[in-house]
């Protein structure tokens, strides 16, 4: 154990001290933060309200326009020509001219402004006018205004899953999202760190230091120390990524929040679920309930989060161990980068296949394909993680994990047998037949 620890320590420190590790670790959270902060930033700029002057020659519109986030309407009483002349001084952004015969010729609406009006503003104004024309026509047809208002509803649905525990909230959207996310992280991590294990083995072999090392330690100890060391590097990197992304995002959004001015900020806060500062008026409550973030949180809260996290860790570790042992075996069998491809291919097939199959499994998480692929140790880390948010019987998870552990022991044994021979073999590229022979060599 002491030797494995020594090896692990070296593998860990060498990698963590590398410049590329530091760059990857610190740049990635910056990029991730940018990816979601930039749209937010622009969305917030868009909240910039335009002031709209309305000249209503028809007379039926008057004060009926409702202000929106983007537009504030102000009726004015003056002839169009003088309004146009004074427009520059008036401080308004847009001038809307509703001609007398608008009801007959709806296409006669005119919009004036100093700069070009954005498509969004144009649509907003057109929509407001359209709405009013519709209303006016309906009222003229004898329908009461109150009836009109009561017909406007906003539909959104909640889905429920029926189980022995009775009716409970579920959200297939959230389950899909979480399942996919976990599967992707596992897929990504196996590749990223598995290849690092392989490169490490190849480095030792091509540097010829391996002979010195294994005159001091057993090949299995060297392999195990390397795999565990890289695993710790991976955990460190992921932890830093999470902390840094969170930190940068929080810092950046608070800076952004200040720069958009107090009025919008309050509005934003009101839209945020659980914003404590605004009094919980009836309106705010309904807004909270309907805001998309809130519904995501609500959906997530219906899932079995501790189970998902627990299984994620187990499958993450199990999947990494299985594949990195295989990657180590590949690294030991080859001399040069050019030979890697041939042996990498069969290892990556189950990995890539399970990632592709994940999208079918998501559509039918209880199908036969889903079941079998979540039992086979090489595919289960990805497929089972896709299924778990939808709910999987406990016995299936236990069986799958047992098989995963068994699979790991099997691949570790196999990899160790190839590894101990491979690291001392130089020269020609071995065939699969030779690899098979190595497995049965006496140590």
């Amino acid at each position, binding site marked *: 154990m002491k*030797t494995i620890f*020594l*090896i692990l320590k*070296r593998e860990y420190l*060498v990698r963590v001290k*590398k410049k590329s590790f530091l760059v990857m670790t610190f740049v990635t959270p910056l990029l991730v933060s940018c990816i979601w902060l930039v749209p937010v930033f622009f969305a917030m700029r868009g909240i910039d309200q335009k002031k709209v002057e309305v000249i209503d020659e028809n007379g039926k519109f008057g004060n009926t326009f409702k202000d929106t986030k983007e537009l504030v309407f102000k009726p004015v009483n003056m002839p169009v020509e003088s309004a146009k002349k004074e427009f520059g001084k008036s401080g308004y952004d847009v001038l809307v001219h509703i001609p007398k015969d608008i009801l007959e010729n709806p296409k006669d609406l005119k919009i004036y402004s100093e700069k070009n009006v954005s498509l969004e503003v144009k649509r907003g104004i057109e929509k407001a006018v359209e709405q009013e024309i519709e209303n006016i026509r309906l009222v003229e047809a004898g329908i009461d205004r109150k009836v009109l208002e009561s017909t406007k509803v906003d539909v959104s649905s909640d889905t429920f899953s029926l189980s022995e525990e009775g009716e409970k909230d579920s959200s297939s959207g959230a389950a899909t999202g979480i399942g996919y996310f976990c599967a992707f992280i596992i897929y990504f991590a196996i590749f990223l760190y598995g290849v690092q294990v392989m490169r490490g083995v190849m*480095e*030792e072999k091509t*540097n*010829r*230091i*391996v*002979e*010195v*090392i*294994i*005159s*001091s*330690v*057993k090949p299995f100890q060297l392999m195990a120390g390397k795999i565990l060391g890289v695993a710790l590097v991976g955990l460190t990197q992921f932890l830093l990524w999470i902390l840094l992304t969170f930190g940068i995002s929080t810092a950046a959004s608070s800076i952004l929040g200040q720069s958009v001015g107090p009025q919008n900020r309050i509005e934003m806060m009101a839209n945020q679920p659980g914003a404590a500062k605004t009094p919980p008026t009836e309106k705010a409550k309904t807004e909270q309930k309907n805001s998309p973030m809130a519904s995501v949180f609500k959906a997530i809260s219906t899932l079995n989060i501790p189970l998902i996290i627990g299984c994620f860790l187990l499958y993450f570790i199990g999947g990494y161990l299985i594949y990195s042992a295989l990657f180590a075996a590949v690294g030991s069998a080859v001399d040069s980068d050019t030979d890697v491809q041939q042996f990498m291919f069969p290892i990556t097939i189950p990995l890539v296949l399970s990632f592709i199959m994940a999208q079918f499994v998501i559509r039918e998480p209880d199908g036969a394909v889903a079941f079998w692929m979540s039992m086979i140790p090489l595919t289960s880390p990805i497929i089972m993680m896709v299924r778990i948010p939808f709910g999987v019987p406990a016995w299936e998870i236990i069986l799958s994990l047992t098989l995963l552990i068994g699979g790991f022991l099997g691949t570790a044994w196999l990899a160790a047998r190839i590894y101990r021979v491979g690291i*001392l073999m130089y020269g020609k590229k071995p065939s699969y037949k030779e690899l098979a*022979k190595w497995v049965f060599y*006496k*140590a």
Partner: protein
Amino acid sequence: MNILETRHIVKQYAQHRALDDVSIDIPRGQIFGLLGPNGAGKTSLIRIINQITGPDEGEVFFDGKPLSQEHIGRIGYLPEERGLYKKMKVGEQLLYLAQLKGLTERQAMEKLKEWFIKFDIKTWWTKNVEDLSKGMQQKIQFVATVLHEPDLIILDEPFSGFDPINANLIKDEILELRQKGSTIIFSTHRMESVEELCDHIALIHRSKKVLDGPKKAIKEQFKTHTYHVEYQGVLNDLNPAYTVLDKKPLEDGFLRANIRIPRDAEVNELVRNLIDHVSVRAFGENIPSMNDIFIKAVGEVPN
């Protein structure tokens, strides 16, 4: 007392028997030359002694006990193919390798200090291995091999890659290590260094041990009972028991001849016989060089 004994070692690879019934005894405190042409099985034997691989048949005894993991810290190994972690600092690397051999960090540090002063390489401590020249890397690797003061040191072609000055430095270190009581197994093709350093030798050829024993005894065994003489005059009418193998004139009017005498003949008789016929300038026995012995035993030129 032998520090290491191998008994009837057999190592079989798929199509090839690398070692066939190899038994050697390595006496303590000696420099033991392990000789043989390329592909004879030297490296296979060395790997078995280092427990990198195991024998298919036979046993190895270290200090009278079956070889096991506990002996790893008492063996130091310098493989023919040298290698270090290129991106690692010299100091860190040596500390790591010493710790793998069972030293604590503090012990390793103390011993490293001595070596760094001895070799005058203090400035190398924080350098990356890849920034050192090949010869410098070899020196580092030699330090790594002997740092834990092993009882048995295995050196595979230790002088390759060294310039003559550094090769001499390493040679002196090897002799000093023997002085301190270490046993050295020394595998090489360079017969002049075998001549100079080894006390014992074993010769492996085509997976079998063909020769072993103290260097002196082997030389005795390969003695040809021939003598050379430099003389003036006519070398005829010698005792018919003596065979003149060849004669050739030297530049200064003298001649040089090789003469074989029967196994039981007295050298003094030959000298007397010579003096009667010619005037002798120089006379001596032809002692076989290691090179001659190698060629004779193997039928190949060492390469």
